[in-house]
């Protein structure tokens, strides 16, 4: 671990209980170990470039709303790493993970210890109440499992995050990840097989399932992560769907604009 990262990890604040974890299961000590491979992926593998990181407030509640892609959630990990490696003071981002993740052995424990939480509205509300930074992928599984021909086209956004933002008076920072779409180009999603296996998607990529599970390992594309200016909306969260959907559309188009900017600025997928 680099001395800078070590220093930042010690500056991460958390309200810990007597046994070293916070009430949600976040453990800074375990997170230190996880930070080592994460930093390697961040600086050496995906060689992440960030833009507009100053748009993420240093303190206080904030919702990061990002596009979701790449079959496996490396995009979430890299956004989390960006806020620690490249931001000063560092911030721990807690992402709202899919409801089936706690069913997975080992993964469930690792997720909890590094501060990730099941994406229920109650959990989100509670964390915002503790002035935390929350990462939400409103496209959910629809986004991450989309096929290569749909790359950088945003799927439908859910409205839950916006109602929570209105209810809790939380600013929304739109986030775009460019580069994750090409890490595992999915040619086809075998939906029936996915259903049979009880997983959200079964992608067919040039390397998966051909090379076995390792075929899901991402290609070393270069990530560019854009953080947009914070958006604030008036309202209390109990408005009609029509009103909220219009506001969701504003967030969605903010993410879309950042994506287009990123695609225009990058010269090649791998550099």
């Amino acid at each position, binding site marked *: 671990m680099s001395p800078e990262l070590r220093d930042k990890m010690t500056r991460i604040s958390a309200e810990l*209980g007597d046994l070293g974890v916070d009430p949600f*299961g976040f453990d800074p000590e375990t997170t230190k170990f996880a930070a080592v491979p994460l930093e390697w992926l961040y600086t050496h593998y995906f060689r992440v470039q960030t833009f507009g990181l100053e748009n993420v407030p240093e303190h206080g509640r904030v919702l990061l709303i990002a596009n979701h892609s790449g079959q496996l959630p490396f995009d979430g990990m890299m956004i989390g790493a960006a806020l620690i490696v490249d931001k000063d003071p560092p911030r721990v981002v807690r992402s709202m993970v899919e409801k089936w993740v*706690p069913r997975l052995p080992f993964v469930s424990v690792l997720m909890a210890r590094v501060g990730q939480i099941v994406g229920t509205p109650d959990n989100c509300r509670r964390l915002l109440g503790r002035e935390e930074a929350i990462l939400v992928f409103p496209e959910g599984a629809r986004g991450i499992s989309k096929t290569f021909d749909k790359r950088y086209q945003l799927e439908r956004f859910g409205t839950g995050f916006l109602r929570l933002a209105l209810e809790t008076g939380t600013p929304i920072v739109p986030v775009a990840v460019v580069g994750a779409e090409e890490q595992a180009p999915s040619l086809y999603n075998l939906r029936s097989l996915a259903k049979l296996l009880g997983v959200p998607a079964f992608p067919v990529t040039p390397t998966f399932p051909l090379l076995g599970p390792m075929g899901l390992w991402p290609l070393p594309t270069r990530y560019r992560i854009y953080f947009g200016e914070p958006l604030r909306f008036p309202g209390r969260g109990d408005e009609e769907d029509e009103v909220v959907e219009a506001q969701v559309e504003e967030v969605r188009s903010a993410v879309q604009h950042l994506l287009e900017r990123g695609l225009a600025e990058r010269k090649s997928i791998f550099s």
Partner: protein
Amino acid sequence: MVTEQDKPSDPPRPSFPSRPRRDVVLVSGGAGRLGRLVVQTLHREREVVAVDRRPIHGLPKDVTHVRTDLRWRAIEDIFRRYNVEAILHLGLIHNPRAEDDQYRFNVLGTQHLLDLAAKHRVPKLVMLSSANIYGPHPDNSLFLTEDAPLLGAENFPNIRDLVAADRIVQSFFYRQPDVETVMLRPVHIVGPRVKNAPANYLRLERPWTVMGFDPMLQLIHEEDAVHALLQALRPGVRGVFNVVGPGEAPLSRILSTLGRRPIPLPAPLVRGTLERAFRLRMTNFPAPEIRHIQYNCVVDGSLARRVLGFEPQYGLIETIRSVLGHEE
């Protein structure tokens, strides 16, 4: 019994007309380990009548023991003989084997007690339910509030009577606004005396764990649970409350605090083996209970802190270590 409530005045009471009836607190389930602890604390302040169908050992001398089944008519005599100021209902059977008539005992016994409370205008009723009735589920929010759905019996049908009893008391709460009803749903109660599944599990030298899972658990010391029950007895308090001890911790850290060396096994293997061992009566841990060491069932105790004023006296480490103590 609803019509009874509408009558304009007390029915005439022919028995014991001359001497005034003494004020008592009725404690059902007084023979249980927690029940005895409650009685031993409560009798210093109030006169206690303990009801249980089991014999009660080690009761203080000034406590009256009525040995009867909660469903029987004999129990009404207590209401005729004494002025029952409050009922503490701790008398639910939590037997993993659900033998004989546990379902009927818990549901009909609770119903009978509530009917008598309404009929004899008992001003206060405190029921001990459990946070287990929410059930451990992978998609649970952390910190379930009191209005979370009671899904505990979905994967563990043997506790459906406990869920039913909880619901009976909830509806009583609304049907009988004159009775101050309090329901407590404490997290796993542990301590030197109690011998329930979580306390027994923590007493194992080499407990099984489910490989790759490490949920957050909440424990409360038995004396803190008693303390919460006594606070619920205070006049003016009503409602449903989760009761949480000194915080939450991952199972693995609780076990290491106790110096245990757990044996992690894959989930299907634990389940299969436990099912067989349970049938052969080699263990009293029912297989569905392993979900408690696999998924979260973490509740929010802030309402009890705010309204009941409940604060646990025992710290997290003390509470965990309390299972090591021996019964006096």
